Structure formats: C-alpha cells, structure tokens
C-alpha cells in the first residue's frame, strides 16, 4: 500500500467531558490516578422501573454548569456534551483562524438523542401534539451534535455523523482523517458523544445481560480481564479532537500532540451483537491500520483496548491482538481505560483516542483498575494499578473500538 506523499495528519486540540472530569486535564489526571467514574444512580426512575442495574458512570460536571441555559434548552444532552467538548478542543488548538470552507465537523453518536425522543413522547401522550417542543426533531437526530458544532464553528467543508454503535467515535476520527487526505478539508473537528444513561437503554442492555450487576460496589464493577468481570458499566460524555494537515498546523505554529497515522475499518458478518470469538475482523482492522500507515507490529508499544469488561468480548479482543501483532504483541502495554470511565458507547472510541494521544504525548500509559485476579486466559501485558512509562523515540499506539453490528475500527497514532 502506498503511503508516500500522503498528507500527514496531526492532532492539535483535545476536548472532553467524561465521568472522570469536565475537561481533558481533569479526566487524564483522574485516569492516571486510577479513579473510577461509576456511582450509584440517584434518580427516581431507577426505583420506579425496578431497574436491575442501579449504577452508571455519569458525567462528572453537569452540562448546565458548562453551557448557557438557552443552549441546554435547545440541545439533547448528547449535543450538550459534544458542544462543551468541542469548545475545549477548539480553544486547546489555539482557536485557529480558518477558512470555513476548509473546516469539517465529524461527530458520532451510537444512539442519538434518546432522552429527547422519549421525553417528547411523554409530552405527546400527556399534553398533546401542540406541546411537543418545536426543536424536538433536530434535538433527537443523531447528527444533531455534529450540526451544533458545525454551527458553533462555522464549519462548511462538510458535517458528518458515522453511526456504528460503540465504534462510532473511532470511525469519526477515521472519517475526519480521510476528509483531510482526500483534500476536502484542512482541519476537522471530530469525535463522539453519548448520553444514554436513561432507563430504556439500561433496561435493554440489561436484558441482553451485557451490563455488570455489581450494584453493591459500582467502582469495582468495570473490571476488564479480571476473572470476576460480569459485563460493562454504562458511561456517558463526549470526546472531541481537532485534527489538521501537518502543513496547516505548522503554518499557524500550532502545538502538535501526535500524528493520526491511519485507521482500519472492517466488519464481522458474524452476529448482530456477539463478537467473533476468533476476533478475525478485529485483527484485520488492526492489520489494515498498520499496513496502510506503513507501520509494523514492532512499532506498537501501547494499545488502548476496547475491553468493556464482558466475559466473551475481552478475550476475543486479546485473540485479535495476538492474531494481528503475533509475537510483537508481547511488548505492547495494554490499557483498558473503561475500567475507570465505564463504556461511553459512541463516544468511547473518541475518548480512548484522546487517551492514546496523551499516552504518546506524556509517554505514559494509563492503568487498568480492578484487575485483581486476572483471567487465566489473559496472556498479554496489561498495565495494572499504576501508569506505565513508555519508551523514548518514535513510538506508535493503537486504539481499538468495536460495535454491535460487527463493526471493528483500529486507529493508529504516532509520537511526534
């Protein structure tokens, strides 16, 4: 695969609102300290619906504290999180002066405006159609957050919303990279957002037996690779990055965190929700990312795993990593940050992409918490308890994201 003469894409701005913090520095610090964002849910609906799962990882800072009141009224929570994160990322990138026709926005969501959809349905049933808020449709549509950011920044090169369940956020970064490489944009604001801590998704995921039911100890519930893992912990929030061509970044003197080298996107065609136990589709995604980026397995020193803490998924991914990297998998420091953040669904790939970028920038892999009793089938090097220093020199990190529907996305980043 030809990789010469390809536009180099770099990451110049980071923004997030997560269960660990209202911005990137707070989130990163909490991740290095190994804190859990999972807590008991204090909402009357938990008891009203007798939900089998009574905890989740809600955003640490409420959007009402980050946005104007009129903004929270006109955006679904998923749009609110995205807007807060995009503002941080844009500011972090130095609020670049940019031609609007060369600025793109790619913001994913796995589920879309579920709060708006269902609350509006309640209004319709209880008060009739005239009381349905006129902005209901733009608020509930999954591209609403992308559109809000496009409006905020005046992005006119194209606004897009990949939807691929829990791979959506990573797919958005891949799409943004392609927009720059194909010449459609010089700079793209991309990432993912999710606000699905609502009784219906909780009931649905619980009905699939996908969620941890460790109600008596929320902070210990997300435990990827641990023998006692029993499902994922639902999280929420947004992760947004600013990416641009290296030429554009250098011309404006931007601070460059890392290079966004390449991505691999494949599908399993195996089962609507279960991962292929061999992980072959996931392997192909990682291999494609490496090959299309001109990288070799030996270059990879760190991998932020999808690792949601489900019994089947965690091991399938390890098989896939072994399948893609072979013996070079042994020297990869693997972090499963969902142990701390919970699973942000359509925002997960974006947040974990940010963690990869920061791991390269600070040469520090974040820890995996709650890994007290590793599953005997785990034969790779998982970073436990404390952050792990990463080597000097030219190093590569991979971020894996997989989604219901058999979507596999691997994104490769390189240090600068």
């Amino acid at each position, binding site marked *: 695969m030809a990789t010469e003469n390809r536009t180099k894409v770099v990451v110049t701005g980071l923004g997030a609102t997560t269960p660990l913090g209202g911005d990137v520095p707070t989130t990163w610090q909490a991740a290095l300290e190994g804190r859990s964002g999972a807590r008991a849910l204090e909402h009357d609906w938990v008891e009203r619906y007798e939900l089998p799962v009574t905890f989740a990882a809600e955003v640490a800072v409420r959007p009402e504290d980050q946005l*104007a*009141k*009129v903004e929270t*009224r006109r955006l679904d929570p998923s749009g609110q999180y995205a807007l807060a994160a995009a503002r941080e990322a844009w500011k972090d990138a130095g609020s670049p002066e940019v031609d609007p026709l060369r600025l793109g926005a790619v913001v994913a969501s796995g589920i879309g405006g579920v709060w708006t959809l269902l609350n509006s349905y309640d209004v319709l049933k209880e008060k009739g159609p*005239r*009381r349905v*808020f*006129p*902005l209901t449709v733009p608020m509930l549509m999954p591209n609403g957050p992308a559109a809000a950011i496009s409006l905020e920044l005046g992005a006119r090169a194209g606004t897009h919303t990949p939807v691929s369940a829990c791979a959506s956020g990573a797919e958005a970064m891949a799409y943004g990279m392609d927009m720059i490489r194909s010449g459609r944009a010089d700079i793209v604001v991309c990432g993912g957002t999710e606000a699905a801590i609502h009784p219906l998704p909780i009931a649905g995921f619980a009905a699939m037996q996908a969620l941890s039911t460790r109600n008596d100890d929320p902070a210990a519930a997300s435990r990827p690779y641990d023998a006692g893992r029993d499902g994922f912990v639902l999280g929420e929030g947004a992760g947004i990055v600013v990416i641009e061509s290296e030429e554009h970044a250098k011309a404006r003197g931007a601070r460059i965190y890392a290079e966004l080298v390449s991505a691999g996107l494949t599908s399993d065609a195996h089962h609507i929700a279960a991962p292929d136990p061999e992980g072959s589709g996931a392997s192909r995604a990682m291999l494609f990312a490496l090959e299309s980026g001109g990288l070799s397995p030996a270059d990879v020193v760190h991998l932020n795993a999808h690792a949601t803490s489900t019994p089947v998924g965690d091991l399938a991914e390890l098989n896939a990593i072994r399948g893609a990297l072979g013996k070079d998998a042994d020297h990869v420091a693997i972090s499963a940050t969902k142990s701390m953040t919970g699973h942000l669904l359509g925002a997960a790939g974006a947040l974990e992409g940010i963690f990869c970028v920061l791991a390269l920038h600070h040469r520090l892999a974040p820890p995996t918490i709650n890994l007290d009793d590793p599953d005997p089938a785990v034969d790779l090097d998982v970073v436990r308890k404390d952050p792990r220093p990463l080597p000097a020199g030219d190093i590569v990190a991979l971020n894996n994201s997989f989604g219901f529907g058999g979507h596999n996305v691997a994104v490769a980043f390189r240090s600068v």
Partner: protein
Amino acid sequence: MALSEQEILAGLAEIVNEETGLAADAVQPDKNFTDDLDIDSLSMMTIVVNAEEKFGVRIPDEDVKNLQTVGDAVSYIQSAQG
C-alpha cells in the same frame, strides 16, 4: 382576574428570556419579534405555547403571524383573557 398590560409584558418577557436568553428588559412593546429580537419561527411557536399555558389563553396558529411586535402579543393576550 384579568392581568394588566404591564403584568402581561413582564410575563412575556420572562418567557422570551427563558427561550432565547435575551434580557427581559429588552422585551419592549415596540420591538418586532423577528427584526429586533431575532426570534425565528420555531422559537416563536415555543413562546406562543408557553404564553398560552402561562396566561390561560388560546392563540391559534393563524393568528400567530399577526403578532409582529411584543405590543401586538400583549394586546392579543389581554383581549383573549376576556
């Protein structure tokens, strides 16, 4: 009991502020909703529905287009109160 013009104006200003973030004292009778207050048709519908609830009146859709200024709305609500 019917509210005075001043009370209706204050109540309407509160609704507009809630919907748009505009300062309540910017909502004066001579202000045009579109040209002066930059209120689009979607926001106008929300304001109308909230006004119906607050003042216990009904403002049919076909009458909304005649409410060009804040003063028009205040008068309409006042006469609709009966």
